[in-house]
């Protein structure tokens, strides 16, 4: 069985509005799964359903091939968007408490926690009270508490909010390391650059509906819009004239921008080649006219795709 979690036609309604409308998706085992969407799209509701905090009105969630049951929940580590720690408890005691509740023995929990505390450089916080920590500091503790029992499935809701770039990077490395160890990670965010860096698959939820789902690479490629960027040496005028006869459209505005930026030796321009046209003939034409330096498809950023998808332009 390929997928760890299968969400099947899940619908959840709250008084007056629909949080999830017939959402289906499959989360493959291993890898990082991005759950994207604007605020209020229904991401957190979906996560809560996977966590069995709330139940769906309709539809079903499958875990490892069987319907999600209470016994599966201990295999999930959940880092909620809003951090929750007892403010008056000491950091170490608290981490130990949560780790023991997740089924670790006191000795095992202490050993693992110490290792994590060293890794994050926070050994000296063990006896501090949570109320003395800053938001970012508390978040590190919370992250450790979430992953310490090494669950099969990890769910991070906006894990990077409140972190400086250095710590965000540290966290990113740790998430990737957990993935390499075999954990499946669900990663909910609206920070698109982090999605490009860590996610293998994504689902985009907008207005309670799953509007885009699949492997990150495929999605970016398939939404490229068939735009190609050409770097060349030689006369731009000649090339433009030549391309008028080819089965493609010059993207003028983009070209003029790029020409300004181009180095003295090479120029570049962008062309749109419709899907069913032969790319080789265009390349041959360019090659005949100028000295071709590079020819590559422009892959849109996740940010562009996100904005266009939410605006309904895809």
């Amino acid at each position, binding site marked *: 069985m390929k997928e760890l979690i299968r969400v099947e036609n899940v619908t959840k309604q709250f008084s007056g509005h629909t949080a999830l409308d017939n959402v289906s998706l499959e989360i493959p085992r291993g890898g990082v799964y991005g759950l994207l969407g604007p605020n209020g799209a229904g991401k957190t509701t979906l996560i809560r359903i996977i*966590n069995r905090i709330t*139940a769906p009105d309709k539809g079903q969630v499958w875990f490892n091939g069987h319907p999600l049951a209470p016994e599966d929940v201990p295999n999930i*580590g*959940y880092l909620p968007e809003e951090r*929750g*720690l*007892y403010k008056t408890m000491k950091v170490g005691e608290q981490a130990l408490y949560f780790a023991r*509740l997740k089924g670790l023995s006191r000795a095992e929990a202490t050993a693992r926690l110490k290792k994590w505390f060293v890794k994050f450089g926070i050994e000296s916080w063990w006896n501090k009270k949570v109320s003395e920590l800053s938001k970012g500091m508390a978040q590190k503790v919370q992250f450790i508490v979430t992953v310490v029992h090494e*669950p099969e499935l990890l769910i991070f809701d906006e894990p990077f909010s409140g972190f400086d770039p250095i710590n965000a990077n540290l966290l990113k490395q740790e998430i990737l390391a957990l993935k390499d160890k075999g954990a499946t990670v669900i990663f909910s965010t609206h920070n698109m650059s982090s999605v490009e860096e860590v996610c293998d698959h994504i689902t985009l939820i907008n207005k309670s509906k799953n509007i885009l789902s699949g492997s990150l690479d495929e999605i970016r490629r398939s939404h490229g819009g068939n735009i190609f960027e050409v770097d060349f040496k030689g006369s731009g005028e000649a090339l433009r004239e030549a391309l008028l006869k080819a089965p493609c459209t010059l993207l003028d505005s983009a070209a003029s921008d790029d020409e300004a930026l181009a180095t003295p030796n090479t120029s570049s321009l962008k062309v749109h080649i419709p899907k069913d046209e032969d790319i080789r003939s265009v390349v041959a034409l360019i090659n005949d006219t100028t000295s071709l330096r590079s020819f590559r498809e422009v892959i849109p950023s996740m940010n562009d795709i996100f904005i266009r998808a939410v605006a309904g332009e895809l």
Partner: protein
Amino acid sequence: MSKISIIAGREFNERVRKKSFIFTTILMPIIFVGIMFVPALMMNIQSDEQKEILVVDQSGLIASRLEDGSGIDFTPSDKSFEELTTEERESNPFGILIIGSDVATNPSNVQLFTYESSTINIESAIADQIATIIESEKLKAYNIDDIDSILAEIDTRVSLKVKQLGESGEAQDSSSMLNIALAYIFGFLIYMFVFLYGNMVMQGVIEEKSNKVMEVMVSSVKPFELMMGKILGIASVAITQFVIWVVFILVVGGAAMNLMGVDEMMAAAGSAASMDPVAMAGAAQMPEVDDELVSLVATITNPAYLLRILGGFLIYFIGGYLLYAAMFAAVGSAVDNEKDTNNLQLPITVPLIVALFVMMSAMQDPHGQLAFWFSMIPFTSPIVMMVRLPYGVPGWELALSVGLLVVTFVAIVFLAGKIYRVGVFMYGKKPTFKELFKWMRYKY
């Protein structure tokens, strides 16, 4: 180790280490013992101080026969009231007592002038003495021989020994004063503990909810385990506190009683408790030992009696606490902050307060209809039954009452768990009772 016990352990450790817990645990028995013994000690201290009262006796009957005592020194004086008040004082008297010449026929012709404010004790001591002197003067006028020995023979003091007949007819010591005191103390203690510690549960739940700790915990613990862990953890805090208090009161109370010379009474009581007729007679003959006090101490040191009261207290405290704590937890789970709890707390506070009122009337009539029925209803039985226990309650009534309490608390814990399950993840809504009932039927 089960998760409930890990959670209960945290609740216990966190609360027992709090300064406020240590403070109240130590302070309460000190205040309690203080209330019991300080007034007695104060009276002892006061009696050392002698107050001089100058007596101007115009009748010539009284002054010579006034006896010093109760902290008063009577000094007969030949001078008139005017002389005493205007002349330089030799000593520093407390006041001047003027006895009118016709005091034998007109007993209200007695005046006391004081330099400081007078007290009821002094006034009644003086009035009693004068009354006794005048009475004996009047008796003398009848010219009866041996009047003193006749009076001594007439003087009678009745001390009522109350025994309660058990079902099989055997007599037991029963002191209604002690029963009333214990009934009141233990009934009120249950009321206080249920309220205080139930509230603690509610606040804990609200804190966890507003801290969003719940969200983190949900992947490792079932909400029901979390609720039960919290309730049981706080229950163990309460029991710890109670045990500390009992030990403390026994130790400090024992020491205080020793100081006040009550140990020989304890010894007498000890032999009385063994129901040995010879020892009983011995105790009765012992001078200065009040019969009533002996029977009181005998009752209180009787193991069966103590077991009934303390055992009953523990059972009813735990049962009542679990019942109400589950309701408090449900209310705490339903709201976002403490301000919103007022309405929802009504079903908790009303029965508790009703129980307190019934308790007051049950103390007058512990076996009446009212006391009986309210000691069966599980929401009031922990408090009302505590009042009835010292007077003795038939076994079947006790069994029925405890049985009903257990069944109800299981049902309430189950329903509260349902509300809790929905409530702890519900934010931003001020729920109504209708919604709470709806939550009970949610399926997960």
